[in-house]
């Protein structure tokens, strides 16, 4: 059990670094001109977010969620709070999955991130996950 805990801790440390980096890059100072690259990136982020939210509307996704005992609203809220870097990663997974397939795989990946953020006490989605202090 302690081994598992150590392993999770390692993963979390990596996740912390990734999240911290993503946050730094996403909160660029605003007292300046808005560059073309920024505008394109922001729109892309919105698009990615919307695509994930649309995925939640699929019946098989909702079935899987209720099977896992997670409400759709909770997941939707979590999606709204994803950083651009996280979104881009899921977008990549989506792009690799053929249409109609792999959705459950993406959900599993999604929950990996949820569980990790739960462990960091950033979220409290899964009651069975205890956070690491």
């Amino acid at each position, binding site marked *: 059990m302690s*081994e*598992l805990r*150590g*392993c999770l801790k*390692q*993963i979390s440390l*990596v996740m912390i670094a990734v999240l911290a980096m993503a946050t730094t890059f996403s909160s660029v100072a*605003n*007292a*300046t*001109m*808005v*560059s*073309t*690259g920024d*505008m*394109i990136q922001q*729109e*892309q982020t919105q*698009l990615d977010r919307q695509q994930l939210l649309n995925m939640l509307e699929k019946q098989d996704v909702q079935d899987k969620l209720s099977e896992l005992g997670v409400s759709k609203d909770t997941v939707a809220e979590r999606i709204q709070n994803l950083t651009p870097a996280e979104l881009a990663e899921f977008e990549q*997974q989506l*792009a*690799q*999955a*053929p*249409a109609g*397939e*792999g959705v459950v*795989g*993406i959900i*599993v*990946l999604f929950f*990996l991130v949820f569980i990790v953020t739960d462990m960091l006490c950033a979220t409290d989605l899964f009651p069975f996950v205890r956070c690491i202090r």
Partner: protein
Amino acid sequence: MTGCHLGRGLGAVLALGLLAGCASAPPWPETGAAPQAEDIEPATVMVGDVPFFPQEKYQCGPAALATVLNHRGLDTDPESLKDKVFIPGRQGSLQVEMVATARAHGLLVYPLEPELGAVLEEVAAGNPVLILQNLQLDWWPQWHFAVVTGYDRGEETLILNTGTLEHYSMPHDVFMATWARADHWAVVTLPPTQTPATAQRLPYLRAAHDLEASNHPEAALTAYRTAEERWPDDPTPIMAQGNLAFSQHRVEKATDHFRRAVQRFPGFAAGWNNLGYALEAQGCNVFAYQAKACAGNLAPERFDDQSRPTASSNADHCPALPSCPLVQ
């Protein structure tokens, strides 16, 4: 066992990717190769005026690139492209160099969606498609560039200029297998006055911005104008023209573009913000202050700049400020 390797967790994530990659080849697309109904859709398509350069061993990159460049009326040949894209040590070319060289010739490089339908639609619209294939195996790759110049819907074959073969008919499943092993890499190269048949707004803008970022401002400007015409409801192409002019120190030109942006899209806060900076650079401090204040009012969370100094005077001949939708 002492401790745990991060590799195990990452392995699980990688396994997901591998599973996704194991799907069998999708069938020949029923629709999507042309906007018309299937019965009037052409069964066979060949792009005209595609030159052919027989490719010597390892030089598929320069030859394929010469094919698409000459199709656009540029006068070049594999020999003169060889120095730019062929790496002797690797006996091949890299995608990034192919793309950079196409841009250096003033063309916009648009990456296609990783679907056969997109390739067919571009070919049907007269755009030869530059593709990458892996002719061998994932763990022992043989990379190969080729140009799709046509297709036969009845036979379910793609027609390629590839290697030493012109108009080679490749069965659909062979094409899909070799193309998938190269991550479905496919691009069209076209003058910045045109948009591809499958063009979507954001990827097109990114392709145009890539032209600017790779130091081809003239081609980028043309592409932004093309985008403004094609997607008139989007402020980004106008903003991009303003930002480009500003970066070239053509401040008055930049102001014109940003003014046009906020006149057409009065609620677009970033437009007011950039207009403010352009006016400031012109010495129009009062108007600059008002424009930035407008941005701050429209989107306080993004543009609320408390440190903004109160301006006292405008330079001569400052252009009139459009009215801010919130601050009258």
